[in-house]
């Protein structure tokens, strides 16, 4: 085949996908590579660099899904990732996914890709929706103007994919000139002056396309200016040109450049788009839905109903499934133990397999039903376009925390489980906002902590159980608000990112999309958190069983000794016993194990456990213990999620540290304060 010439000595072709958020880029990626990946409406969902492979006409392709961005400046991390990939990895072809219903907006990125001298093929995606809206695009004309192949696609249906790949193969050999924006006499003078300087510098011209770099200098691009600040001669020239242009135009050169780009795009769109609907006609259905969903009075009630539905769906359906899994593992443990006993296996081995391995695997797997269901429900909200509206509706409250609407969703998910809650922070574009949202997320009382409250509130406050439990949840929210403000104020003095968020049109989610989405996130949890949980379970088993010969999880075992060592610290909080301390240590594993551990150490279950708790606690110390359970150290799965999402041990330890200190302080405050008030 003639194409082999290009590929000689090469294993594969590298193709990058670039496009705006909500342009259907991820759908196209799935369609191309068959990779199981998220299809979302939420801005910035594809944070990670995702790769997939495919074979077409006997040639191997590596497809890289770049983050969805509106631009290739240095404004967000995503933009920098995308642009660095194009500069440094130099993909053979870049497929620019363009939303056909939104040509003008999308071409802004296209212009920047052309400026980078990327070898472009345009996928004019969602061409069916465009047609339905009465937008007719002359793709040949567009292709002719931009000197770039243009292919109509409908990624969700796989239409046009073959033609796209054929064009990609053709483009590999392309050596000619692409479209170039004429920025006008004054700007072009500045650009060519810098361009020739850049060309003289071998280091620069080797790495960068000179014209692109020259434009970035004129635009005063933050990253580029920083990177080359040491090249004083060049920088002086840049400053000089910037000044001169400012003198001519009366404003920053970057604004002039952007204006020019949009002007050129507007001209191209006029030439290529035959019929354009007026703003009033557009999105009429979406606008009508929005009028209700974001309504001043109805917005919040609708939001609350939607959230209630998510939780009902997750837990009403998930809890029975979890119970079955738990029962299955209990049964499996017993059956295995008796079988091991029958073949005269040593006690230590039996205990290791039953209490360590099987109980450990079980403790991971019981999470699966609620987590997968929760992800499914969240996917429905996201893919339908409602999630962006929920963020909009909640913005008023979140602004009070110095965060904005988008931070609310992770907090809310945290009530179900902090792990997906923390993972959901990926949609926040500002790094500091994201970190603050991650750090306070464990204060959202997750479902696993409820059994502890039920036990203690049931033992002491049977009459006001609901109210007492509610007060704990409320305390978590209040503390999250306070901590978010404190973190924002002292740790990240920076500004909140200005609030601009695209509200994508409402769409009916596809089942395939929802399932892929659920599977992607759910399996990630199982893989990442699962291994850590399992590891800690085994560790705790070892601590509970050693030194050799002690009764499992007794005061003499290492865990018991650890509990005894910690107990004095907990004394001011009213529960300075080794039993309570051990339960809390076990609770780090998974918060609901606090109940199980108390059962083991008191040797009591069911009603007897209530009785035992009444003996060892007072109402006041019980409340302090609940407060401690709410706040202290996130469970290992959450710790693992924090580590993964912050990619920093420093912030992970910070989260562990501050929750521990805060939990202790609050518990002591409750207990000592209560005593002063004569409640103890």
């Amino acid at each position, binding site marked *: 085949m003639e194409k082999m010439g290009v590929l000689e000595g090469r294993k594969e072709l590298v193709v990058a996908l670039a496009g705006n958020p909500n342009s259907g880029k991820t759908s196209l990626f799935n369609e191309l590579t068959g990779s199981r990946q998220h299809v979302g409406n939420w801005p910035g969902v594809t944070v990670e660099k995702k790769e997939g492979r495919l074979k077409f006409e006997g040639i191997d392709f590596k497809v890289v899904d770049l983050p969805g961005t509106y631009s290739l400046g240095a404004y967000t991390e995503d933009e920098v990732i995308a642009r660095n990939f194009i500069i440094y990895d130099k993909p053979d072809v870049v497929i620019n996914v363009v939303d056909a219903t939104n040509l003008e*907006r999308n071409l*802004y990125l296209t212009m920047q890709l052309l400026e980078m001298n990327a070898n472009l093929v345009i996928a004019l995606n969602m061409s069916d929706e465009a047609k339905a809206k009465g937008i007719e695009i002359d793709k040949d004309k567009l292709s002719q103007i931009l000197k770039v192949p243009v292919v109509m696609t409908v990624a969700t249906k796989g239409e046009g994919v073959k033609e796209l790949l054929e064009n990609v193969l053709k483009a590999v050999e392309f050596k000619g000139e692409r479209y170039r924006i004429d920025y006008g006499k004054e700007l072009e003078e500045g650009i060519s002056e810098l361009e020739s300087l850049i060309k003289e510098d071998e280091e620069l011209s080797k790495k960068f396309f000179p014209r692109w770099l020259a434009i970035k200098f004129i635009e005063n691009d933050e990253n580029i200016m920083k990177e080359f600040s040491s090249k004083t001669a060049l920088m002086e020239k840049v400053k000089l040109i910037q000044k001169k242009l400012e003198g001519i135009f009366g404003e920053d050169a970057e604004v002039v450049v952007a204006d020019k780009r949009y002007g050129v795009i507007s001209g191209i769109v006029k030439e290529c788009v035959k019929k354009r609907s007026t703003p009033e006609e*557009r999105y009429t259905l979406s606008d009508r839905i929005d009028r209700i969903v974001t309504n001043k009075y109805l917005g919040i009630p609708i939001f609350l109903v939607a959230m209630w539905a998510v939780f009902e769906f997750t837990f009403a359906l998930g809890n029975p499934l979890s119970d079955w899994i738990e029962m299955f593992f209990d049964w499996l443990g017993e059956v295995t133990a008796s079988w091991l006993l029958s073949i005269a296996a040593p006690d230590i081995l039996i205990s290791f397999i039953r209490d360590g391995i099987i109980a450990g695997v079980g403790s991971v797997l019981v999470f699966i039903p609620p987590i997968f269901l929760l992800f499914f429900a969240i996917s429905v909200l996201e893919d339908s376009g409602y999630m962006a509206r929920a963020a909009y509706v909640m913005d008023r409250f979140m602004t009070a925390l110095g965060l904005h609407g988008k931070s609310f969703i992770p907090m809310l998910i945290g009530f179900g489980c902090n792990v997906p809650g923390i993972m959901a922070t990926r949609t926040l574009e500002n790094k500091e906002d994201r970190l603050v949202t991650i750090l306070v997320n464990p204060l959202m009382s997750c479902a696993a902590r409820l059994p502890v409250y039920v036990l203690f509130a049931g033992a002491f406050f049977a009459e006001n159980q609901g109210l007492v439990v509610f007060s704990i949840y409320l305390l978590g929210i209040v503390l999250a608000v306070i901590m978010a403000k404190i973190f924002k104020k002292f740790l990240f003095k920076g500004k909140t990112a200005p609030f601009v968020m695209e509200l994508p049109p409402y769409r009916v989610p596809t089942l395939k999309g929802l399932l892929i989405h659920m599977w992607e996130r759910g399996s990630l949890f199982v893989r990442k958190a699962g291994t850590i949980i399992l590891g800690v379970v085994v560790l705790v088993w070892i601590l509970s069983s050693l030194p050799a010969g002690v009764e499992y999880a007794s005061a003499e075992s290492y865990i018991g000794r650890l509990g005894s060592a910690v107990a004095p610290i907990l004394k001011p909080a009213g529960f300075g016993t080794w039993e309570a301390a051990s339960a809390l240590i076990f609770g780090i594993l998974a918060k609901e194990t606090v109940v199980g551990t108390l059962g083991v150490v008191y040797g009591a279950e069911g009603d007897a456990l209530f009785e035992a708790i009444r003996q060892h606690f007072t109402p006041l110390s019980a409340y302090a213990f609940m407060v401690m359970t709410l706040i202290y150290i996130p469970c290992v799965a959450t710790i693992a999620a924090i580590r993964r999402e912050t990619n920093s041990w420093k912030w992970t330890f910070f989260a562990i540290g501050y929750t521990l200190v805060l939990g202790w302080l609050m518990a002591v405050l409750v207990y000592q304060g209560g005593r002063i008030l004569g409640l103890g």
Partner: protein
Amino acid sequence: MLKKGGIVLPLSMLPPGKKAVVVDIIGGEGIRRRLIDMGIVRGVEILVVKNDVGPLIVGVGEMRFALGFGMAQKILVEEL
């Protein structure tokens, strides 16, 4: 682009249903860049979809944006 004598006012003051042309963006570089990226630049037509409490909803071309009130105050427009 500008009509002579047209009243220039912040976008945040426009009631829903009104259309306007962006005249200028005041405010820091961060805000300006962000708006440029979203296609909100001088000469662009903006439709106010919603403006009561909290962020505005505006239409630019085919898109809809939620726009913080503070940001809307920094976009100067001329009503059409």
